[in-house]
């Protein structure tokens, strides 16, 4: 079941030196799964997420042969119609809760406002829903947190609040842009568990944008590796360590590892040929479809 289908997506920005293409013709389908998007800064992974939500600001130009949410085209919709999709059907969690929450509104008011904008309804009902969402993201005393301002909560809590807010309208797709890179490892596991449960229980599709290869290998079902605005390789997450593209291999090798000490870390030697050339697609049919 395909939730989102993207073909030949391009995002370009006119500059004084000519057109700069941030995303150069990428295609993928998202089902009810955890799809990891990995790449270095500047590889176009965040821009892909923004393009799907129609958040690329002029003078940026988004083109695609196809961009469909459950069969309906969503490319370059007028802002009014996009607003009905954004937040309600496709939601996005940004990297840093510090810059995504309104500093002068209490957390409760923000969640209630976001929820009523999408689902309507009376304030008391929205408040109940907000409390329920905060509990769902493992916040222990939701009553207190509802009355708190963003600066009164920790980074990890802020990130969970963002997730609660994004999930209140029950979206079909969640785009999470580096949702855990500002968090400590212990909180990270908690936040990932929450997202994992939502994919399993609600059948949500998750696009998980990250630069952390090991995390993606363990958390996601499938991975797209991006380099210079293109997808250079797609493969099942559990096979990430058997990647065939030299870029993916180079990224993996450049990570220091506790279990395999080396004197010097291998350094990635970038090749111009990676910018062009075909995507290495691993056949996704496994020997035992559906498992043993």
């Amino acid at each position, binding site marked *: 079941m395909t939730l989102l289908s993207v073909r030949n997506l391009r995002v370009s920005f006119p500059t004084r030196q000519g057109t700069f293409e941030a995303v150069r013709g990428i295609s993928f389908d998202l089902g009810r799964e955890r799809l990891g998007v990995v790449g270095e800064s500047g590889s176009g992974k965040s821009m892909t997420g923004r393009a799907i939500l129609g958040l690329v600001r002029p003078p940026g130009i988004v083109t695609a042969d196809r961009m469909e949410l459950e069969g309906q085209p969503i490319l370059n919709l007028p802002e009014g119609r996009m607003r009905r999709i954004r937040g309600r059907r496709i939601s996005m969690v940004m990297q840093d809760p510090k810059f995504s929450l309104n500093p002068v509104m209490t957390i409760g008011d923000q969640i209630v406002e976001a929820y009523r904008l999408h689902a309507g309804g009376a304030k008391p009902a929205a408040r109940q829903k907000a409390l329920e969402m905060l509990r769902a993201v493992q916040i222990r005393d939701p009553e207190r947190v509802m009355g708190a301002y963003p600066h009164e909560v920790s980074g990890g809590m802020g990130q969970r609040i963002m997730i609660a807010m994004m999930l209140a309208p029950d979206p079909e797709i969640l785009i999470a842009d580096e949702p855990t890179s500002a968090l400590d490892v*212990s909180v990270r596991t908690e936040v990932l568990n929450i997202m994992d449960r939502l994919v399993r229980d609600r059948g949500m599709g998750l696009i998980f944008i990250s630069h952390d290869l090991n995390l993606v290998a363990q*958390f996601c079902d499938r991975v797209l590796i991006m380099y210079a605005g293109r997808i250079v390789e797609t493969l099942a997450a559990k096979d990430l360590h058997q990647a065939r593209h030299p870029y993916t291999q180079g990224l993996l090798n*450049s*990570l*220091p590892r506790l279990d395999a*000490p080396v004197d010097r*870390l291998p350094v990635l030697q970038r090749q111009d040929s990676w910018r062009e050339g075909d995507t290495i697609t691993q056949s996704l049919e496994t020997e035992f479809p559906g498992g043993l």
Partner: protein
Amino acid sequence: MLTVEHLNVWFGFDPDRVDAVKDASFTVAQGESFGLVGESGSGKSTILRAIAGLIDTWSGTIAVAGQPLAARRRDRAFYKTVQMVFQDPYASLHPRHSVDAVLSETLRLQGMGDIDRRITSLLSDVGLGRGFRFRYPHQLSGGQRQRVAIARALAAEPRLLLLDEPTSALDVSVQAEILNLLSDLRAEHGLTYVMVSHDLAVVGHMCDRLAVMQGGRIVEVMDVQALRQGNARQDYTRQLIAASEGYARA
């Protein structure tokens, strides 16, 4: 090279006083690379800042090369011995100073002569060519900026480098380059490192020994062999090691 005994660091006054570091003690030998790990708020960066003289409110003993430090004033000799590299290369360089200005100002402050030759050799030390000398920070990538920040720290010809998360703002491929550079520089110049990181794998790669911090206290000092084999004595360290191995589905 560095001795820290019963170090307490606090911010603010009673009743709002926050004790960021409580009774921390460790020693770092000449030529050693020592890691400080822990979660955010555990006080690891605060220890570095107290050593560097960026925080006044501390008690206990800090001695560099056998010389105990005064709480507030640091003399010139101190800054010739100890230098610091900060986390965010996008924030630690003045946006309107060229690489040349950054390095020549530092060299002049350190009372060095022969500035022109020294800049050339500093740039080549950190793997930047002559072409970078008159560039501004916005014309450099994150990794190149961190190289400039390292060159600035090396300008004083220090013996002890304090590294505060030197690669956490960088991509993994660039992180590998910077870590290699730091290893090379330590070998060439006989430097001593104290490195703060939240990434156990990075500390495992770079350091000989490490201290694990939690809530302002050092809970465990261990060597890297013990870290690799997972021989932690404290539960907290074991949790940290387990969490750093990645995500295990619940």
